[in-house]
Structure formats: C-alpha cells, structure tokens
C-alpha cells in the first residue's frame, strides 16, 4: 500500500510543482524547461499505470520533440525574463483564478463522489491486466482505429504543409521571393 503510495505522492508533487513553475516562471525558457520536467514526471506516472508504451511515447514525443520545438522557438525569439509575466486586471485575474480553482474543486468533489460507482476495480493498479504490450496497442490501432490513424497521418501532412505555408505567408519573413 505504502509502496504504491510513496512514489505516487512524490511524482504527483513533482508534477504539480513543476507545472506550477511552468506557469509562473517569468522567463519563458524556464517555463519550457519546467514543462519538460513535468512531462518526464508524467511519463513516469504512466509507467506506474502499466502503460509503458504511452510513457515512452510521452518521453519521445512530448519531452523530446515538442519541447525541443518550444525551446527552439524561444531561442529564435531570444526572449529575456519578463517584467510583467501576468495579464493585468485585478478583478479579471481574480475571476480567472477563482473560476479555475472552482472548476478544480467541483471536479475533485465530483471525482470523490463518483468513482466508487464506476464499473472498475479501484483497489489496485491494473488487477487482472498485464502491463500493456505495444502489440496489443498496435492491433487496436490498426483494427478498430485504423481510420482515425490514417486521418492522423493526413493531419500531420496538413500541418507540415501548413507550417511551411505559414512561414511563407505574404508579408512574412520570406516575403521577398
């Protein structure tokens, strides 16, 4: 019991802490790095949830590719520490925090009141289920979700073309060609 709890609480703390840092650090580069750490921590939580494949993808895609993208863009911009990192407006800021916090509160209360009704075993992680293998996932992916998967491919193509096109938009950096 404790053995499962301690890593969870440590990881949770780390995730939340770095997530907090991500949204509060005045320097965007720091934000990006904190985000990366959050994601890595999350990957470990995924591992703990018997989902090694997803955990791996998380590491590779998110912590790797996406974060690199972010960092590179930030480098490109050459940003300094921001003087005022947050939006102005006391009232609206209050509303923003309050509404988000309230949402979290409601969700948590809802979760606490509802999960016992779920049709799932809640006592331990993955009872009766082995750590999922990538084979199972692949089978699902190419059977049930084949269409979505293909569309995903299309999507990536679109994004590739789109990103290139955006970089060449009239009035953009390559305007002189």
């Amino acid at each position, binding site marked *: 019991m404790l053995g499962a709890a301690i890593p969870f609480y440590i990881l949770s703390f780390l995730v939340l802490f770095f997530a907090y840092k991500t949204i509060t650090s005045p320097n965007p580069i720091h934000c990006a790095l904190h985000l990366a750490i959050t994601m890595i921590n999350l990957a470990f939580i995924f591992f703990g949830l018997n989902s090694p494949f997803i955990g791996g993808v998380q590491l590779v895609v998110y912590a790797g590719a996406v974060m690199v993208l972010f960092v590179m863009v930030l480098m490109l911009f050459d940003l300094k520490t921001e003087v005022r990192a947050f939006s102005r407006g006391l009232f609206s800021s209050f509303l923003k925090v309050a509404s988000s916090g309230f949402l979290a509160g409601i969700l948590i209360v809802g979760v606490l009141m509802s999960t016992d009704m779920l049709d799932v075993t809640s006592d331990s992680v993955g009872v009766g289920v082995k750590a999922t293998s990538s084979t199972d996932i692949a089978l699902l992916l190419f*059977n049930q*979700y084949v*269409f*979505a998967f293909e569309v995903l491919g*299309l999507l990536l193509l*679109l994004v590739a073309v789109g990103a290139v096109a955006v970089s060449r938009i009239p009035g953009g950096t390559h305007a002189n060609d």
Partner: protein
Amino acid sequence: MSTQFEMLDLLLVSPAIALFLASLIPLAIKVLRGNTESNSVATIMYGLVGVVTAMVLTLANYGIDKVAFQGALRFDGLSFWMQMVVLVVAAVTLILSRDNPATNNRLFSEYVFLLLNSLVGMMIVAWSNDLMSLFIGIETMSLCLYILIALSSEPRKSKEAAFKYFVLGSFASAIMLYGISFIYGTVGSTYIQDITQVSIQLMNTNRLFLFGVVLTILGLCFKVSVFPFHSWTPDVYQGAPTPLTAFMSTGVKAVSLAFFLRFIAMEVIVSERAILLMNALEWLAAFTILAGNIAAIMQDNLKRMLAYSSVAHSGYVMMGILAAGVGGESILGASGVVFYIVAYTIMTLGAFGILVLFEKRAESSLEVSDLSGLGARNPWAAACITIFMLSLAGIPPTVGFFGKLFIFSAAVKQGFFWLAVWGVIGSVISVYYYLRPIVTMYMQNDEGASVLQTKGLTRLAISVLAISVIVFGFIAESIYSTVTSDLASLFF
C-alpha cells in the same frame, strides 16, 4: 482480429478520399512548376472537380444507414445532408476565394489544398459516431482553418484572428477532450451507440459521466459559438478573409451542430437528473439568441454584424437541438435543425459571399454606411442583399422563415414555450439590424464608398443562392419531409 475493415467502408468514405486526392493536384502542380502559382481558375477547377466527385459519391450513398470502421463512422441521413451542405459550401467558397484578393495570393494552391482537407475534416465530423473520431475530425478541420486564416494577404487582422481562433480553439478542445475522457472512463467506450445504452442510467447515478457530458457539450457549444463561448466568433469572422468566414460560419457550424444533434440524440438530457442540464442549455440558447442579436445591433462593420447574427442563429438551432433531445417527438426537432442548417447555410453563404464582391483589396472592410445608395447604383447587388437579409430576419416567404417556423414548431411542441418567446423577442431585435443595410441601400441617397467588383463566377454563385432562398421557401415541404424520413434512424 482477422479483418480490419471491409471494402464497403472505403467506399463509404470515398468522398473524403476523393477530396484528399483532388487536394493534392494543385499542390503537386505547384511543386512541379517550381513553386510558382498556376492559373487560379485551374486551381479551383481541380478543387471543384474534387468537390463534384465527392458530391456524386455522396449521392451514390444516399439512403443508406451503415456504420463503418467498427462503428467509428456512421453513414445515415444526417451525415448525408451534412455532407451535401458542406460540399456546397466548399464549392461556393472555392469560387469566392478565387475572386477575393485576400485569399487569391501566391499561396493559393496551398490554400486550396488546406481548404479541401478542412472539408475532409468536416465530413469526418459529420460522419463520426465516436467521440474520438469526432475529436480528430474537429482537429483536422480546425487546424486547417487556423492556417488558412493566417494565409490571408491581409497582414494584421487575419493573423490576429488566426491566433485567437487557434488558442481559444485549442483551449476548448482541451476542455472537450477532458469531458470525453470522463465519458470514456465511465462508459468504457467512446462510441455513441455504447454510450446511448447506458446514458440515461448513468446520467442519474454518475457525476463523472455528467461532467463528461457537460464538458463535451460545452466544447461543442464553443464550435457552434453559443453564449458565452461565442466571444471568438466576431473577432475571427471579422479578421478572416471573407470567403473563409463564409466557409467557417456555415461549414464548421453545420457539422458541429450535426454532431451536437447526434450527441443529444443519445438521450443525455432525457433523464430526470438531466433536467437541469436541459434547463442550463435552454438558458444558453436564450442568452445566445439575445446576446447575438443585441450585440449585432451595435455593429457598423457588416462582417462583424453578420458574425453576431450567426451567433444568434446558433441560438435558434439550439432550440431545435433541445427539442430533439428531450424525447417524444424528437424527430421534429431534428428535422427542424437540419432544415434550419440548410436554410442558414444558403442565406449566410450568400450574405458573406456578396461581401466578397465589395473587397477590392485584402484590407478592405465594409461598413454599413458604405452601402448607401447601392439600390440605385447596383440594383442586382442591392436586391441580393435584401433577399438575404430578409431571409435571415425570417420574413416570409423566404427559406429563413420556414427554418424559423420549423424550429419554433419543434420547440413549442416539445414544451419549450418560453424559449420560443425568447426566440421571438430575439427575432424582433434582429429585424432592426437586418433592416439597416436595406435602409442604407435604398433609403439613403448619398453615395456610399462601396464599389462592386465584376466577378462573374461569384455573381453567378450569389444569384443562384439568392434564387434558392426564395425557391427553397416554396419547396420547403419537400425538403423538410425528405429530411424527416432521412433522419428517422437517428433516434433509437
């Protein structure tokens, strides 16, 4: 796990495949020509060929009720109608885009490519019978649109619009996705048919499922710009190039509403615990009607005014959707919604489309006062605007009137009497701003700043739309009854 999918499934999605293939042509030609734009007419012709092919393939699949890819997609009356709507929208948009300086620039091939693939995304949304497919469809559609908006020649506002749309769209997607995750967690599946079986029971017992449903619905509300999730609409519609505004305000909305209908048809708001959800949606619908109409009154920019008007129209459709969601004579609501979408598409497409003709440069923006004296200067354009505005206002005998009639009928029948009254009050308010352009065109004699471009294709398209507004009013019955019979299978 032997067969992954059948040949029939591919046949069913063939319109999307056709569109995708067609979309590649202009891009390929551009690449082969060494990255120089070919003739824009040729470019849209490829696109139109794809659209027409897709249309033919769609028509070939008319009258079936099938699921494909293990239930991920559904091909029934609703999806058929939505396909037709978005295909028509796309065809018109292609024509408009070619005639608009903001879109017809040296990235036109990419533009057409993205537009057609956005269309693919829309069709997926229209087909989707699975929350995951829905999400992927929405993202395909939206990501293309973000980029498309940014591709405008207009340097500032279009970028702002694209970015706003992007951030808010992603934000809303995340919220919706969160909802989907709850639904998945409580049901164990994201397929509509699986959810339907347990929805009534779960709504009564499980709060997480309720959260899931609410968050998903609110995410959809963002897409169809329901108050208070509508605030992106005016900004984005105004900033985007006009052909795209027409495309978004009709296509995106049509398919999102269609999925909304599919979702609500799962009887998620039938159960007693869901009464409050229904009430909340009623309030949202009423507020949408009022907020859209009231805000539109204050606008001087025609595009922005029409954007707010499209918000208000979402409110009317919400009335129909609610009527379709509470059981009983749901079919009335559903048919009303689909008919309204058809009507709304025709008139909104026309209204935005005619604005294209006034845009000489990418930066052009049309104020209401620019129209003054148009009635004398260009009777054709003035008459078209008049027809579209009257139809949007719901004045008989236009198609807009029948749309309202059917929606109000459904609402009254299903007991949303007060909602109907709010709708009526909203309509009265809306008359004011719909009349404004007419007043300006015919009743103010000073010369306005508007100059009409001579673009044959666009004029043709708009004339056809204007005539349809009237004609569809007279053949409303045949459309409506066809829709009704086509939608019969929507409800289990």
